[in-house]
């Protein structure tokens, strides 16, 4: 079955088996964050990607169902997305905040955490702690007890507000 998936604003024509999940296809295409897929039954959230701007578990969708939607992986988060996560020259504000706050321990959930946080901050640059916790609620972390990632997202939000001079929530 031939598909055309739009990932990080680029089209990827690919042949897939109909039963293949989006997670597997992203792995085949070499997207690094998606290698973190863990439980493959929608519980751990390690395989999070953004679909049309919302965090989803890529193990819960067939790849064919993602056709026609915008998929965003962790590779889109750096300052130089084309260079990918490891090779990037610089980090996004969120990535930097995760590093500075010590949110990256084993690192397994980190790409998912950052994408989930990005989805929140793209819509709301002044979130409450409860809103941050809800935004991260789809991603399990067994190292940090969520304290550091929550601090990181709040710090990143503050930095985004200070850089943009925008202190409110995105209008509809």
């Amino acid at each position: 079955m031939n598909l055309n998936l739009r990932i990080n604003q680029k089209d990827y024509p690919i042949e897939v088996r109909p039963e293949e999940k989006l997670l597997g296809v992203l792995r085949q295409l070499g997207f690094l964050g998606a290698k973190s897929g863990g439980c493959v039954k929608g519980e751990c959230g390690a395989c999070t990607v953004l679909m049309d701007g919302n965090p989803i578990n890529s193990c819960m969708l067939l790849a064919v169902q993602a056709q026609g939607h915008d998929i965003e992986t962790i590779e889109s988060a750096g300052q130089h997305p084309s260079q990918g996560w490891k090779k990037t020259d610089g980090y996004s504000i969120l990535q930097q905040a995760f590093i500075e706050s010590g949110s990256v321990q084993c690192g397994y959930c980190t790409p998912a955490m950052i994408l989930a946080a990005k989805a929140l901050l793209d819509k709301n640059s002044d979130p409450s702690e409860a809103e941050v916790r809800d935004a991260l609620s789809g991603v399990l972390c067994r190292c940090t007890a969520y304290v550091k990632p929550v601090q990181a997202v709040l710090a990143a939000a503050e930095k985004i507000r200070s850089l943009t001079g925008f202190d409110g929530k995105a209008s509809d």
Partner: protein
Amino acid sequence: MTEKTMQYKRPTSMDEARALKQQFGDKAKLLFGGTFQPKLEEELEVLIDLQKAGLDVVEWNESGLQIGGLATLKSLEESLELQEFSEALSIEYGLNVRNTLSLTNFLAQTNGRSPVLCCLLGLNARVVLLNRNEEILLATYMEEKTQEDPVIQIRIPEVLNLAFESVARSAKDLPIVCVSVAKSGDGSVHVSVGGVCKLIPGFTLKNDDGQEKIKAILANAEDEWASAEYRQEVGAVLLSRALLKLHLEAGLQETK
């Protein structure tokens, strides 16, 4: 080889989808949005993806909310705008699943332990099934559900308010007992009880506090999680708290 012969269709209406299903019969499978375990049988020849068939429509009218089966749990939450429903939802699912899991697939796999189902039953929800033109009570669907006849629409009558209470081993565990109480537009107060795999029948309050009724319906609610006696005691307390919440909220709304 299944991968070479499988066709993928994305019909733009349910009429088109039904025609395709009729044409290919058992060799076609309908895809009802995001699910925990997308599984495809080997003999399938056609996948009919319903994501563009108009089954994710959300509509409010004089009789309440009508929401398509392919809408996600997140869409339902945003449509209802009930804080207590959101709390019940957050117990059961993180945001990723709420963004993905369709109502059809949620209802197909859920059981009486679900706090979300408890709220929907409290809200006196009705459902429309793929192969029936009439709506039936969600409780009836839960008793009789089959894979061949999934839910394609949920209808929730006008709701004034909803209160939800639960007890679990931890904040994000599925409840051992949960109670939802909803006040409808016609003034009636409907009670639903969950936390037990087997569906517990709900009831409507009629000039009483429901204490005896809730103990009666939980009389046999014993499983590996809790005894029936425990659930009876806790259920009665949760019902009192939920009713108090409902009345306090009603009082606040009147004050405003």
